[in-house]
């Protein structure tokens, strides 16, 4: 059967003239008022935006009080947002209850994390150096927080708090969770039914619980189930809950990557006489993780957002520390500004993470396309 088409090309119709070149502004304007409906929509949205944005701008910027050692300045007639609360409380928000004269240690940790993140973001260094650097940064952060050696005063985990604690929780979750996730994913795809059943049951159960339930299990019940001589720090217990929860989700992402791998890859490696572990390390995992990376990055970003759950357990991550800072009766009325600051902080970090994830994804696609040629 021949392909029939209603269009008859080349029947003598005059070629359409090339569209006139138009400026950027003119193009945007044309798209804003493409049709009467679109034009009306533009006008309505613009009206609402102006009606909302102007008072908001006045409150947040024009009438705002930026610096006031005394909250009375914020109470003045017509005063807008009281950002002074951030200036006043920034030490508590950023470092929690960490001893005041030792807070430089927290500042060093934050600088290390942000610095190494910025330095490795362009991916100029080899992967091993980047990962090794993160391990060093993590260990140095732990030493700086704990103290007790190198002449640093020891600080108990009950005093840890703020942004350094948030970073440590996040780093520990990803570092502990990823290997567990790979193990669970491999186990779930195992030929051995006992292993695959146990892994599947574990993953599905944990995924069926809210994170809060997992954290409560780890923080409240775990000590009951361990012998009394084995006591685990509360922070560490909560961290175990975070790791387990993250691993259950990440395992599904890794499993997706494993499933996307054509059987031929593993069969070819087997035919070459490679052992199971060698196949895993050289053939299966590098490809599976590359495929799973977008999904994994979503889980990693969620792990960062989930660090806030520690505040419900009474630990002082950034949110918990902010909550504590805003208990001050002088500043309690400016809670909104305090939480907006935390909101902005998380927004910046999560946006950075998600941009980084997208750039890795683009890189991978480019490499795959090159490999396909």
């Amino acid at each position, binding site marked *: 059967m021949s392909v029939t088409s*209603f269009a008859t090309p080349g029947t003598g119709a005059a070629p359409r003239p090339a569209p006139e070149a138009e400026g950027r502004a003119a193009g*945007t304007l044309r*798209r*804003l008022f*493409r049709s009467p409906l*679109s034009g009306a*929509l*533009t006008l309505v*949205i*613009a009206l609402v*935006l102006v009606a909302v944005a102007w008072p908001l701008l006045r409150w947040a910027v024009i009438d705002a009080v930026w610096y006031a050692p005394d909250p009375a300045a914020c109470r003045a007639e017509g005063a807008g947002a009281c950002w002074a609360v951030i200036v006043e409380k920034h030490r508590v928000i950023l470092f929690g209850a960490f001893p005041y004269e030792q807070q430089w240690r927290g500042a060093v940790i934050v600088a290390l994390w942000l610095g190494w993140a910025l330095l490795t973001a362009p991916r100029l260094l080899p992967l091993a150096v980047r990962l090794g650097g993160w391990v060093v940064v993590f260990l140095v952060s732990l030493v700086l927080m704990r103290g007790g050696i190198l002449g640093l005063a020891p600080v108990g985990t009950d005093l840890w708090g703020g942004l350094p604690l948030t970073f440590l929780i996040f780093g520990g979750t990803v570092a502990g969770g990823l290997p567990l996730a790979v193990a669970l994913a491999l186990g779930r795809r195992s*030929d*051995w*039914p*006992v*292993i695959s059943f*146990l892994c599947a049951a574990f993953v599905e*159960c944990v*995924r*069926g*619980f*809210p*994170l*809060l*339930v997992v954290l*409560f*299990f780890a923080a*409240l*019940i775990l000590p*009951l*189930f*361990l*012998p*009394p001589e084995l006591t685990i720090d509360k922070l560490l217990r909560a961290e175990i809950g975070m790791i387990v929860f993250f691993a259950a989700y990440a395992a599904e992402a890794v499993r997706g990557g494993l499933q996307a791998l054509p059987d031929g890859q593993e069969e070819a490696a087997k035919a070459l006489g490679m052992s199971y572990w060698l196949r895993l390390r050289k053939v299966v995992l590098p490809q599976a993780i590359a495929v799973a990376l977008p999904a994994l990055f979503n889980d990693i*970003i969620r792990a960062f*957002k*989930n*660090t*806030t*759950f520690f*505040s*419900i357990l009474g630990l002082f991550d950034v*949110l918990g520390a902010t*909550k504590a800072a805003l208990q001050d009766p002088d500043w309690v*009325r400016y*809670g*909104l500004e305090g*939480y*907006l600051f*935390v*909101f902005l902080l*998380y*927004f910046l970090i*999560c*946006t950075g993470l*998600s941009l980084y994830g997208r750039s890795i994804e683009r890189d991978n696609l480019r490499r795959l396309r090159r490999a396909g040629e």
Partner: protein
Amino acid sequence: MTDIAPPARPPRFARLRRGGPRAALWQLAVLAAVIALGVWLVANARAALEARGMTSGLDFLFAAAPFSLGEGFFSFSSGDSYLSALGVGLGNTVMLSLVSMVTATLIGAVTGVAALSRNPLAAGLARGYIDLFRNTPQLVQIVFWYTFFTLMPAARDAWSILDVAFASNRGLTVPAPDDRETLALVFLAFCGGLLLAFLIGRLARRRPADPQRPRRWTGPLVALLVLGPPLAVWLGAGVPLGWSVPALGKFNFSGGATLSPEFLAIYFGLSFYIAAFIAEIVRGGVQSVDAGQVEAARTIGLSPGSIYRRIVAPQAFRVVIPPLAAQYVSLIKNSSLGVAVGYPDLFSTSNTALTYSGRTIEVLVVMACIYLALSVSVGLVANLFNRLVQIPGR
């Protein structure tokens, strides 16, 4: 008939035998280790409970609970049993989740379609919304909304919204129908009718339509099924029509219904956060429809509205269901964050119950099982629905 040998059936427990004796030994060892770990943990817990002189068991569920709960869809006062406290918590969680799901789906659908709009202002606004709410922790959003409402001016300086609704530090006071129980029944009857009409529609479509006898009665029948039951309930209840509109008195409002800051915080936090994810799913679903189909539809002269309704939406709908169900499950699980603002959902109710009863393990296990059951049942319903709406295999 020539006899055909039945296909060779794999030997029983074939999977268990795979890999030879070495594999079997390894698996036995793992199984034994897991069981030993379980026994060891339980033995430890037993010893710990005995050392503290605590008893275990679920009998406490029927004892009177010495606490009362904040306001939710259902309320609980002290003296009732722990079991009914957990029931109230579960009811609040389910109602809160349902209301938030509907809100999140509506906002998400509109935002997702708007993000693809050719109007740059609408698309930019939608993208901004998605980025802002996706890239911040849900708990921060919930705490933000809670602070926002509790720091509102007192009732006498309330923000008036067109003089029918008022926002103050007591929450949001809105007009409400007088007879709310009947209205709830009407709504349930409406849902039942909708389900019935859907099922009958599926059954009817199984048989190919007879071209000689076109089904002319389907339209009226669907209308009757969907609108009949709620109308009957409403008429049966005596046609309640009264609405109470709040009015600002000297210190407080009279009339209307007040939504507490706790409810608003968790409701906004759940709805707006999940809506951003649903918007991304909707956007992906719409984009998954082959561009050639839209072009073809445009070529045969369908209007943009009909293209969306007849070509894009039905196909996007099928793609969207599985990830949407995952978001619903995530919404239900995250409704446990109500504990952060003191909304009496299942989690915070259990939290209170375990403080008062001292039965940490029992309460946590019961609560975890309920959450697991909720997640699993949403997954099952979504699977069933997914199978119903998929195009039959070709």
